[in-house]
Each structure stands twice: as structure tokens, then as C-alpha cells.
């Protein structure tokens, strides 16, 4: 068993691309580019000066300071790094907790996997920030975290510093388990209707409110100097809901139909909390005014539809229509592959609904930054913001644009030219490992032939575990 495990370790450790690319932040000048600032127009033949991971200057007459690294981006386009407001990459194992209807104790931040190669693939698609969400099997799902795609760094270095924690809610077919029959012998789980979904959420917040009161009373009495007090028993499922009511945790709610969107807004009003984003929100265009009035954002797909009943009224005009009605809208991926071309998905809102080029780009940059409360740090090319940038060889709203470099905190985490140059080494290393394995296997076979009485059974070699791809209809997460 030892060798296969060792091999798996080596494969993960070295064969994945360009792990050591990012270097300590220095001074970088990106020059000669068309700069799509998002907030103050496009700058032709522009330059961006990066110092200590931040954008230090943006303009047309910047000079490279001594010792600065110069990236000549002649004929190329620079835009802010793409922010994916709905992602499940970098998660170790499944994102769903199928058994309980309320799984707010489950914590995505505890299971971040920095070795997930999808981090690198999305980085190569220009993504720099992702909102890593729990699944949608539960009306109240698990806790979520915003990360930067710092490929090669440890799990503890992925979270976006200071970003607000979140929690996933889910409405409609997934929490009522319409399309997922329980395994034989397992009873169906409550809820099985949209009415039940509402009640599960109301019940949980009723308990959370009581829990909050218990702690409030306890704290008050303790502060008043009362002795020998027993603190209330801690409840890890209710604590995040108290944080939601206190405005310390964002609610990102998976939803499809207009009626369930309004339902959650009513429940939020009843318990005094805000919905930060409606996720998927494929019928958001039907109740865009109500969403806008609540202050919630809408994070949707470009053109997915008809994969289930509640997605049958999905229209590719959704992003544009919600935008026109004053909702802050983003386009997300919910899928490691879809994330690699969110710039293309944003461009479709120009065709379907007539958004301007800048408004289209906002869907994957500034708007998701606003939705995640990180727009003071990222989402546009402005002095003082983090140098999270993508350099494309063409206008990113064109299908022909290919990301050439992706920077996070002023460090190059993806470089297409270096990736391509590195491929021969990867191939060589892989071949060497395979040869080594073959030789070792032959040697083992020979030694077994010499000692046929060896009693120990040979372990079956297991192929590497492969995640199911989730393009098309797949994920429960959707």
C-alpha cells in the first residue's frame, strides 16, 4: 500500500502546475495596456503601478521606478480579477449535509483544500476571489467563506482577510428533495414542500431568537455581578443564526421561483435580518423591484435553464432586467468549469437585454465585490485597492480573449507563457514516476516469484479518486 500512497503524494505535490510561481510582492509596472477600470472608464495605452500588493497608481504617463518589474501588455487588456459569487472549489469532500434540514453547524472554512487543482484552473480563467458556499440540500445550510485563489498557499492563507462570514440558505426543489430520492430504507426528510421550507427557517429563527435572549439575560446578570450563574448551553447551530440577526453574517440564499424569494424576504422582515444575496435567483426578474427594495443582491447564471422545473422560466435576460430595476447583480459559476469563462458569460448580458460593456463587466467584478462587502478592497482598478488583476490578449467581452496573466495581491499567480513552458517538465516527471512504478512492480513480482509462500495478500491498487464533473445538470449544489 505504501507506494501508491507515496505516488499520490508526489503527484499532488509537484505535477500540478506552477505552484511556486507567486513570489514576494514587489513593485510591478503593467504598461501599454487597455485598462478597463470599471469605475472610471477605459484607459488606452495605460499603465498600472503596483506596490506592496496594492494599486499605487493608474494612468498614461507612469514611469517604472528603479527595481520594478515591468510587464509589457502592449495590445492587451487589463481588468479587475473576476469575483465568483457562487463556487464550490477548494472544498475537501462533499458540500452537502443531507440528513438535517438545518445544518448551520457545518463549516466550509474548516474544510478548505488548497490542493484542489480547480483553484488553478479557475485562476487561469481570470478568477481571483470566490465565495465558497455550502450545498443546497437544507433550508438552512452551512457556513461559507470568501477566499482568494492563492494557489500554492496553505488553507489558512486562502480566506479573504476581514471579509464577512456567510451562511447558505436554500429554497425550492433542492431542500424539499424533489429530485433526490432517499436510498432504500431511509425515510423522506421534512420538508417536502415550499411551505415546509418556510416553516423550517421560521422555527430555526424562533429558537435562535430565544437562544439570543438567554445569552443576553445571562450576560446582563453576570455584568450586574450576580454570582454562581450557569451559562446557557452553547448551540453551534443557533449561534450563526444569532450572528445573522446581529448583522455579523451574510445570508446567501439559493432560490429559483419568484414566490419563494418573496417568502424569504417576509421571513427576514419577521426576524429582523437581511438577505445579502439571492443565489441563482432565476426568476428574480419577476420580482426585481421587491429584491431591489430589500437591498439584497442577485447572483445568477447567464443562460442556464430547463434542467429542472423551477428553472423552466429562467431567461438569459435575467441579469440585464434585474440591473435595469436597480438590483446589484452578479453572474456566478456554481461550477469549477463555468468559472473559467465568466467574462464570456457576462458578455451575454449585452446580447440579452442590452447592458453596456462596463455594466456587463461589473457583473463579474465590482458587483460581486459589493455583494460580498469587499468592494473597498477589490472589484475595480482604483488606487489603493488590492492588485487583483487579469491580463487578456483581447477584449475580455470577446469569445476570443484568453487570460495571459492573473495577479492577486500584486503577485503573478498564473502566467500562461510559463504554464506552457512548464508542460514538458511535467510530462517528463510524470513519465519518470510511471517508469519508477513499473520497475518497482516488476521487482516486486520477481521477489514474489522467488518466495511463493509469501502469505500476505497483495493490496489492490486504487485509482485516484475523481470528482464527478458537474457541467450540465449534475450537482445537487445547483
Amino acid at each position, binding site marked *: 500500500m505504501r507506494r501508491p500512497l507515496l505516488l499520490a503524494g508526489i503527484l499532488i505535490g509537484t505535477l500540478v502546475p506552477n505552484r511556486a510561481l507567486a513570489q514576494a510582492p514587489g513593485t510591478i509596472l503593467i504598461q501599454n495596456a487597455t485598462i478597463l477600470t470599471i469605475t472610471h472608464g477605459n484607459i488606452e495605452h495605460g499603465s498600472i503601478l503596483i506596490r506592496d500588493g496594492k494599486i499605487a497608481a493608474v494612468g498614461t504617463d507612469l514611469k517604472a521606478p528603479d527595481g520594478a518589474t515591468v510587464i509589457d501588455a502592449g495590445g492587451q487588456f487589463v481588468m479587475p480579477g473576476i469575483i465568483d459569487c457562487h463556487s464550490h472549489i477548494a472544498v475537501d469532500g462533499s458540500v452537502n449535509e443531507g440528513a438535517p434540514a438545518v445544518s448551520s453547524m457545518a463549516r466550509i472554512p474548516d474544510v478548505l483544500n488548497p490542493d484542489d487543482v480547480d483553484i488553478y484552473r479557475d485562476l487561469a480563467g481570470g478568477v481571483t476571489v470566490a465565495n465558497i458556499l455550502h450545498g443546497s440540500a437544507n433550508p438552512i445550510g452551512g457556513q461559507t467563506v470568501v477566499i482568494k485563489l492563492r494557489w500554492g498557499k496553505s488553507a489558512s492563507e486562502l480566506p479573504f482577510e476581514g471579509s464577512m462570514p456567510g451562511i447558505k440558505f436554500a429554497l425550492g426543489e433542492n431542500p424539499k428533495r424533489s429530485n433526490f430520492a432517499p436510498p432504500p430504507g431511509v425515510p423522506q426528510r421534512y420538508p417536502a414542500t415550499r411551505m415546509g421550507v418556510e416553516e423550517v427557517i421560521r422555527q430555526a429563527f424562533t429558537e435562535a431568537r430565544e437562544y439570543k435572549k438567554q445569552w443576553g439575560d445571562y450576560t446582563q446578570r453576570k455584568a450586574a455581578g450576580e454570582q454562581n450563574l450557569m451559562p446557557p448551553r452553547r448551540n453551534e447551530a443557533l449561534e450563526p443564526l444569532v450572528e445573522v440577526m446581529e448583522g455579523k453574517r451574510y445570508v446567501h440564499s439559493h432560490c429559483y421561483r419568484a414566490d419563494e424569494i418573496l417568502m424569504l424576504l417576509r421571513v427576514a422582515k419577521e426576524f429582523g435580518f437581511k438577505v445579502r444575496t439571492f443565489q441563482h435567483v432565476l426568476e428574480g426578474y419577476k420580482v426585481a423591484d421587491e429584491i431591489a427594495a430589500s437591498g439584497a443582491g442577485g447572483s445568477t447564471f447567464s443562460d442556464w435553464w430547463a434542467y*429542472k422545473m423551477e428553472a423552466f422560466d429562467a431567461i438569459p435576460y435575467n441579469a440585464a432586467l434585474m440591473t435595469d430595476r436597480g438590483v446589484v447583480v452578479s453572474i456566478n459559476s456554481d461550477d469549477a468549469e463555468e468559472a473559467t469563462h465568466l467574462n464570456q458569460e457576462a458578455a451575454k448580458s449585452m446580447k440579452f437585454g442590452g447592458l453596456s460593456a462596463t455594466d456587463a463587466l461589473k457583473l463579474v467584478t465590482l458587483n460581486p465585490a459589493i455583494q460580498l462587502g469587499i468592494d473597498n478592497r477589490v472589484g475595480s482598478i482604483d488606487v489603493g485597492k488590492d492588485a487583483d488583476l487579469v491580463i487578456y490578449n483581447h477584449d475580455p467581452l470577446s469569445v476570443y480573449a484568453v487570460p495571459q496573466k492573473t495577479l492577486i495581491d500584486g503577485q503573478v499567480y498564473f502566467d500562461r507563457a510559463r504554464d506552457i513552458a512548464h508542460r514538458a517538465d511535467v510530462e517528463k516527471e510524470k513519465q519518470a514516476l510511471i517508469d519508477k512504478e513499473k520497475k518497482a512492480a516488476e521487482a516486486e513480482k520477481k521477489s514474489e516469484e522467488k518466495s511463493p509462500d509469501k502469505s500476505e495478500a497483495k493490496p489492490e491498487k486504487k485509482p485516484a479518486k475523481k470528482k464527478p464533473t458537474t457541467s450540465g445538470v449534475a450537482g445537487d449544489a445547483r
Partner: protein
Amino acid sequence: MRIRRIAVVALAIAVVMTFALAVSAQTATTAYAIKGARIYTLAGPPVEGGILIIRDGKIAAVGGNVEIPAGAQIIDATGLEVYPGLFDPITQLGLNEVSAVSATVDISELGDYDPEIVAATAVNPASTHIPVTRASGITHVIAVPGSNTFDLGTGGMIGGQASAFHLAGWTMEEMEIKRSVAMFINWPSITTHTFDFTTFSFKDKPYADAKKEYDKTINEMGDLMDRARHYAQASEKGSPAQFERDLKLEALIPVVEGKLPVLVAAGRARDIRNAVEFCTKQNLKMILADGTEAWKVKDLLKEKKIPVILGPSQRLPGEEDDPYDRPMTLASELHAAGIPIAFASFGTAFSRRLPQYAGTAVAYGLPHEEALKAVTLNAAQMFGIADQVGTIEAGKVADLIVTNGDPLELQTQVRYLFIKGQLTSTDNRHRDLYEQYKGRPAAAH
């Protein structure tokens, strides 16, 4: 005498009706002249500011100096571009309305070998997907039975006969290009590690067991082909009393005779090699579908002249250590090796992404003109319907699009859509919903 009189009256009525039809065929709605556009015929260099005449459903003429027939509806397309209608050659269009609602899904029949079933039988001409898809410039498709959504696994081994049809018409009979264009085969894979969607967990089985299952399947399939061959011989001798009619074997006759191509879905190099070996041995005309690892067996595909219908260029690499852009560069790599390629969505709702898949392949090295052919002409040639569709040439069915630019670009709009020579509406459920809710009065708060 009475009978004769009735016959005369009937004949007279028939003559009048024929005349009426002939008259209606000459009305403005069946002849069109598209003027002023740049016409990408894909059969030669683009025709600048030319005239394209459509008459009786067919392309009548294309060129710079073409006479416009009297009564033709003239479409001023100055500044616009004309292309052959886009062709998505592997879809479940018409067979699948809402994927998660099984009552609306007719993709895969039960059983391992269903050569006798035909997609056209179940294509719903009123499917919401048809107008939605054609609004994005896709004018004709092939529906493939047994081809479940691209990467979710599949039904039986022989899924049935694929049908090519236009995306407009009152009935499937009106829409059909060719009822049977290929026999679909899901190539069996030696699979030891599978994901089970009912339990949402992985299941493993020993390689020896998987290999045994695979060998059994291949033997069965070979046996079926042999029986079809014998059945064909027996049929030729024309003594029907000596054997019972067998619909499965009957359906396989054109396959074993090499008249009907087999469309074989295989991704891994080993599976592709096995499929090619089988088809060569059985003398079948093979089209490869998917071909995720086709780059590993380029020489074999080239040597055996096997064209490839690629799955979406936008997907993740199969292996963790594959180059991140491997799926995007696949098309250009196969094209450079001289292997005919086409793109397909392998889907229903994603059929309208077909031009995006082709465009992405261009971004990663495929020549633009080849990408255009890979969503029009190439697949038409593979399936033997290039005499009807695929290019803008006189005599072909007028399936074409008039756009405001490059049809592979994300923002390009289809301004006019012609299917079977009819100016066809681009209205669809999505636009209807958009218009409806755009008009919603401001909500009261």
C-alpha cells in the same frame, strides 16, 4: 357512367388544386432576395454585397449579378452578414423538455440494444427549446437517442437511430432532413470507479470483473452484427416464410452494410482504440463522438479516416495533471492532424452555446474558417446530408442566418433567420417572458 363522371370531376378538382398550390408557391412569401450583405457561403470566398435568392425553400442563386424574381420579398441586409444556418449534430432537442422531470424526457429507452428505435418518433415539434435554440442561429440539429447529458453517463450500448431535422415546422414530417442518419453506440468502458448519483458516493469494482463485463458486452455486440449480416443475406434471398421478422436485426442491416454510419461515443484513448478496432473488424462506418482523449490516438483516427464530433470545448481536463487548456486546444490539434472535426453541444438547453464552443476553440488555435465549418458543413458531410445543408450554394435547402457580425461571437445578433426557405421568427419563450416582465409596473412597497 356515373363513376366516370365522378372521376372527371375529381380530376378537375385535382388540377385546380395543383394550380392553386403552384400559384401560392409564387407568392411573395416563398421567394426572397437578400441584398447588400457579405455572404459567407463556406463554399468559396465571401461574396461582398451580393444577392442571395431563395425560392421554394431552396437557395436559387448567389452572386453579385443575380436577377431578382418578380414578387420576391426583398430584404435589405446592407452591413449585415449571411452564413449557413448553424448545425448542432448531437443533441437531445425535442426529446427532453425539463431534464429533472422524467415525464418530459424521452432520451434513453430501457435495454442494452435498441437499434430499432428512432429519435424522430419522439421529437416534440412544439418543444419550447426549438424556438429558443433557433433564435441563436441554430437552424438544424440531430437528436440522438440514448445519449444522456454529456458527462452524466448513459443508457444502453446501442441507443437507437439519430434523426436530423430543421428547427421549424408544424410536424416532424415537415421538419425532417433525414429520419435515420446514424446508429448511436455508447462505447462501453472498462470502469472500476464510478460515481453513483442515487447514493451520491463512489463505487469500486476490481479490474478483472470490469474487464470481464466489458468483454462480454463486446462479444454480444459483435454477435449482434454477425446476426444482422446473416439476416441481411437471408432477407436478400427473399424467402420470408423461413424466418421470423426481427426488427432489431432489420434495423442493423444498413449498419453492417456500411450505409448507415455508427456514431460512437467514447472519450478515453483506450475506449477509442477499442471502438476503432471493433468498427474496422466489423467494417462499420464510424463517426467518433466526444473524443476527450482523441489527441492521444490522432494517427489511428487519421489512418482510419474517422471524423470526430467534439464535446463542448469548455470543460475541465480529464486528468489533474493535464494542461488546463487541454479541452480548448483539442479541436485545433485534431484539425492540424488532418482529422475532420465538428462541434456539438451534446445537450438540449446548452445547444445555443454551440457557437461559443467553436469560438473558444478559435481562441485556442483553431482557424476561424474551420471553426465555422465545424458548426455547419463538416457534420453535414459526416452524416451524408451535405447535399441539403452546410453551405450557401444553389440547390441546397435555404437554412441560413443573417447576422450583424461574426456568428461565433458572444454579442452577435441574428437579424433574420431562414429555415427551409421560410423567413422564420426569432421569437421564443425567453423573449416573451422578458417583454412581459419588463412591462411590469413598478411594484408597490
